[in-house]
């Protein structure tokens, strides 16, 4: 007997009355809660936290149809993953809340010198200003030769850090661009 949850609620509301008349409701009481991931879209991913690299499955709402904006409904371990075999730790198990989180940043923010708060700015402003700063700093602090006259070709006034939480490809791009800019102050989490 297939019962939807709505039917079930209706039935149970009138249940006591009907059963008083001898109508037995037990089939209706059978568990009919819907499985919240029964029709979600599954995407294979890797937990972004530690280096065990547990396979996770991200369940998003919708079937990737054009008019749907997916959101994460649930995240669970990937049972096929040879390392974690579907298991997760308390951080991995809460990944949904890492993605869907009201503390996420959604707009570029800018803080001017001496200011006490952030200003929302558009991307173009932020990127243009950053590029200008990089060029100014590089031009100003670029060292072609050291005191002994040896070629060094490096930018002394700027540092680049990061990457360990991002993809390998992004790390590579970071190295590529930073080194092209002549950055020597380059480091990441593995130093710490």
């Amino acid at each position: 007997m297939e019962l939807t949850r709505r039917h079930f609620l209706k039935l149970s509301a009138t249940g006591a009355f009907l059963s008083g008349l001898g109508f037995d409701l037990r089939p209706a009481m059978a568990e009919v809660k819907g499985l919240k991931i029964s029709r979600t879209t599954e995407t294979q991913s890797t937990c972004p936290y530690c280096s065990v690299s547990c396979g996770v499955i991200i369940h998003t709402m919708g079937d990737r149809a054009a008019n749907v904006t997916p959101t994460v409904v649930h995240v669970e371990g990937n049972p096929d993953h040879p390392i974690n075999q579907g298991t997760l730790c308390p951080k991995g198990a809460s990944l949904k809340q890492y993605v869907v989180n009201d503390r996420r940043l959604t707009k570029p923010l800018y803080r001017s010198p001496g200011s006490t708060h952030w200003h929302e700015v558009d991307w173009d402003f932020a990127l243009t200003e950053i590029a200008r700063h990089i060029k100014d700093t590089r031009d100003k602090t670029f060292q072609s030769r050291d005191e002994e006259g040896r070629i060094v070709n490096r930018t002394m006034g700027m540092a680049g850090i990061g990457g360990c939480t991002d993809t390998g490809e992004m790390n590579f791009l970071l190295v590529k661009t930073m080194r092209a800019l002549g950055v020597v102050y380059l480091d990441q989490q593995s130093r710490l």
Partner: protein
Amino acid sequence: MALELKAISATNYPTLGIKETERVCKLIDVSVCIGCKACEVACQEWNDTPVEETYPYTGSYQTMPELAYNFWNLIKFREVELGGSFGWTMAKYQCMHCADPGCLRACPAPGAIVQYTNGIVDFVQENCIGCQFCVTGCPFDVPRLSPKSQKVYKCTLCSDRVAAGLEPACIKACPTGCLQFGTKKQMLEKAMKRVRQLKAQGFSQAAIYDPPGVLGTHAIYVLPHGDRPEDYGLPRDPSVPWIVSLWKGPLKTVGNVVLLGGILTAALHYLKFGPMRAEEKTRG
């Protein structure tokens, strides 16, 4: 794997079904629990239980002092001397899904608590009237009332997942395999094997916790020091409180006798003696 009802709270009719399904069971092998709380989070995530407040620091690694209406699965941490050496025990605590569920016996709301043939004891909040009799009936002190909805909540053993052929969320998450899921028979076999292993490793008191006082549970434990369940936060020899048994058993009969007997006696009296009319009496 549809769920078939076995028992329904506040309903005296025998069940309609004749199906007999395998009983499912959760095995908690305390000897390999690392207290990581993955089960706690998985439970919250799957069941979308709200985190309404941040509980203050409890003075231990334990998330909160006891279960809550929105926290159905709690690892209890204890620093104890066990078998002559220092130990830090971590044991998950949740609904035990008793074969003889005290909550169901105590519940007065028809269909608010059901027991499926697979052994899961589930609360159906739509039918719950919030009287908390189940809290009284539970020998493990598990059900908790939500102050907001005035309904009682507890671990469902992810009955929705189990019905769809999946394992409960906590079981799936558990990194070390401290939690296992299968039929009661399989789990008892696994537990037995672990107990043998532990005994061989020197835990002479290793034992399975499957309390007979409630006719066994559908969440069973392997305890390295089986002689001391209290050190893992588990009650020794739990059973449905005798008061609940008395109340749902003999006292109910007494009540019925008084009610029916009273009415019957009155009727008989009326038939035999009739009303005491003032006129007759005065006349007499």
